[in-house]
């Protein structure tokens, strides 16, 4: 037994506590205690990376997840999430033994059953079609049943239902939502099957439909693609321009540096969105133009960071040493400065993607930048605002998705920052 092992854990100096723990604990405990290794919330990075990965997969293969095309008109307009489009249903007296349209068939020669419908609606047509189909099917069967109902047309749903209550008609065919609204007034009636015998709860939409009957959920998923294209392309573009400019300014120095820095600082201090508004307004609506406009905004971010870091690294002793043994500028740039700058670029990139997605959505919300046919969250929000009084789902879900995507990228950047930059640990 060495002295170290006999000592109670409290006496171990704090600096080496975690080293001792690492030797003792298994992999699970290590992961749980990971914050102690890095002093960083690396699980922030883990969770947000998973989220980011999910979003990227959705963006690449939206058709795998989305049930419909983004611009397909697939249902009635303003269908709430979880609600179902109305179907024509059979309404019968409680005492009737029938349940489907087929049950109303009678042997040939007997009085044909009366069925009440509302004039002018599409229930009469649906009833006619359904009855014909069933009739064609059953007249070949040996029972000799026929279904050729008398269709009685009434001016309103109430009259049609009253006819059934009074016994004038054997059943009524009305839209399911209309009967649901009036059910309490007709205690002696019950709802049978839908006309076609299909489910009454078919054709619903997870997140509802918008004003022209597009599926909100499908548009959300397809919107991921547009948002990520904008976010990534804009950030990459500004990285490609900003990083070399920053390196050049740091290396060349002099009046080139001063002039460039003045322009970049002006751009940096100015509200980015407003500049993007001006640029997209001028360039006209298209995805490429949005990307260019947003990229312009973020060039100064990379420029300032890279320039600052390159300037400080340039003065470091090891660069000095490399220079004194005759390393060329390109070599110094490649071997000493670039590797030092990369982690910060990665952090800024991640946060930038988040910011670019927000800005892109903001532009689209203002009606600038993207053509209105593109499935984009900002466009959907602007459209939803017009119907705020009656369709809460049209504005709630696109915004929630933006929040989630931006949060994922931001947290990833934050986590990376804490891991790469130990000085921030204690904050």
């Amino acid at each position: 037994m060495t002295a170290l092992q006999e000592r109670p854990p409290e006496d171990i100096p704090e600096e080496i506590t975690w080293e001792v723990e690492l030797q003792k604990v298994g992999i699970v405990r290590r992961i749980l205690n990971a914050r102690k290794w890095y002093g960083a919330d690396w699980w922030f990075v883990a969770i947000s990376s998973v989220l980011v990965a999910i979003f990227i997969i959705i963006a690449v293969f939206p058709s795998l997840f989305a049930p419909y095309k983004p611009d397909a008109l697939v249902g009635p307009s303003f269908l709430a999430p979880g609600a179902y489009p109305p179907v024509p249903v059979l309404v019968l007296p409680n005492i009737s033994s029938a349940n489907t349209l087929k049950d109303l068939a009678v042997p040939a020669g007997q009085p044909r059953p009366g069925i009440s419908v509302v004039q002018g609606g599409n229930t009469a047509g649906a009833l006619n079609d359904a009855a014909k189909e069933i009739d064609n099917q059953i007249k070949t069967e040996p029972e000799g049943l026929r279904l050729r109902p008398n269709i009685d047309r009434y001016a309103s749903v109430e009259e049609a239902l009253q006819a059934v209550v009074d016994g004038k008609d054997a059943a009524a065919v009305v839209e399911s939502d209309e009967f649901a609204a009036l059910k309490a007034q007709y205690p002696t009636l019950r709802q049978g099957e839908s006309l076609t015998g299909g489910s009454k709860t078919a054709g619903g939409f997870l997140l509802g439909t918008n004003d022209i009957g597009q599926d909100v959920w499908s548009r959300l998923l397809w919107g991921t693609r547009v948002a990520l294209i904008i976010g990534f392309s804009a950030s990459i573009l500004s990285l490609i321009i900003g990083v070399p400019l920053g390196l050049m300014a740091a290396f060349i120095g002099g009046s080139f540096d001063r002039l460039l820095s003045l322009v970049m600082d002006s751009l940096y201090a100015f509200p980015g969105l407003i500049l993007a508004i001006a640029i997209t307004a001028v360039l006209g609506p298209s995805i490429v133009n949005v990307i260019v406009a947003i990229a312009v905004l973020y060039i100064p971010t990379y420029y300032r960071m890279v320039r600052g870091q390159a300037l400080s690294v340039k003065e470091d002793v090891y660069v000095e040493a490399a220079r004194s043994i005759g390393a060329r500028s390109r070599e110094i740039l490649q071997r000493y400065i670039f590797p030092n700058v990369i982690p910060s670029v990665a952090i800024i990139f991640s946060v930038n993607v988040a910011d670019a997605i927000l800005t892109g959505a903001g532009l689209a919300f203002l009606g600038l930048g993207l053509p209105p046919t593109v499935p984009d969250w900002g466009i959907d929000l602007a459209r939803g605002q017009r119907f705020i009084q009656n369709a809460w789902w049209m504005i709630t879900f696109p915004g929630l998705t933006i929040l989630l995507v931006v949060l994922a990228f931001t947290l990833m950047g934050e986590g990376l920052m804490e891991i790469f930059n130990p000085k921030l640990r204690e904050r």
Partner: protein
Amino acid sequence: MSPIGFVALIIGIPALVLLGYVLITGSTGLRRYILTRIVLTLPMVLILGSLVFLIMRVVPGDPVSSALGPKGTPEMIQHIREQLGLNDPIIVQYGRFLGHMFTLNFGNSLVGGHRPIADEMSERFPATLELIVPASVLALLIGIFGGAHAASRRKGPVDYAWRIYAVVIYSLPIFWLGLMLQLLFGVKLGWLPISGRIDPIIGTTLVHRTNIYTIDSIISGNWLALKSVLQHLVLPTITLGLILSGIFVRLTRINVIETLSMDYISAARARGIRERVLVYGHALKNALIPIITLIGLQVAILLAGAVLTETVFSWPGMGSYLVERISQRDYNAVQSVIVVFALLVAMISLAVDVIYSLVDPRVRY
């Protein structure tokens, strides 16, 4: 007096007094620094203005023909272009633009009744001011107390809650926050109006003097109008204020944590001063000094947020003016708005620097 003059007086006189005070009492270094800063704001405004001037000119699309629509004959378009000076060589137009910029006169609008842009802005700018001032105050209140609270409970659940608050707020699309508030308080609960600055009927009774409706209604003693104005202010202010508050929480938290680790705090703690007094009295006061400069950097976020907030709430301020005029290709109005915004950013950051030098006697330039 014109509304813009009144607003200029409200902001300008205190600013001039402050500037004069600093220039007279300040050290030579400080004086030189401030004068340099004033001189340096000019290129910034110039660069931004020229940039916008250029991009507005290089692209296709003509404000006159888009304003006249299909009715405009080529002769008419040509005539109006001539009148507005759009047929002059670009360098002449640029010179005129620079002239407008330095006299803050801005010329006439290219669309509608060709009104002077300065007049149009004197209606719009006070609206924006009425929105961003209370929003900034709200953001600062939440930010400073939230940040100090988080710092005092560092690494505890309270701290985590505030950090998550800050990150979530940062990731929130401001226009969506506005929409959600409208949905909840305007549509579902019906407590507050969701658009405009004042009830249109009550608005007719209001005497417009400064175009800052709160001040107008107080001056004229129109309490009904004041109530309506304040009701309309609530949701936009909360929207913009909350979005800004996230950053302030973060900055305050970091600064207070840093200050709390200083020796004099340990000394105070050793003397038995209560933790609450320590955090909110000793640490916060000193942590606020660097925060002042950081506030200056958030002006950009404030203005960008104001544009979106104004659009969501149909608030007739500078932001919605910009968006409106962009769709009509009114170059003059657009570049004027950009110049005013650039001036605002430059002025606020200058003011912040001046205040900083006053508050922190250690800062010497």
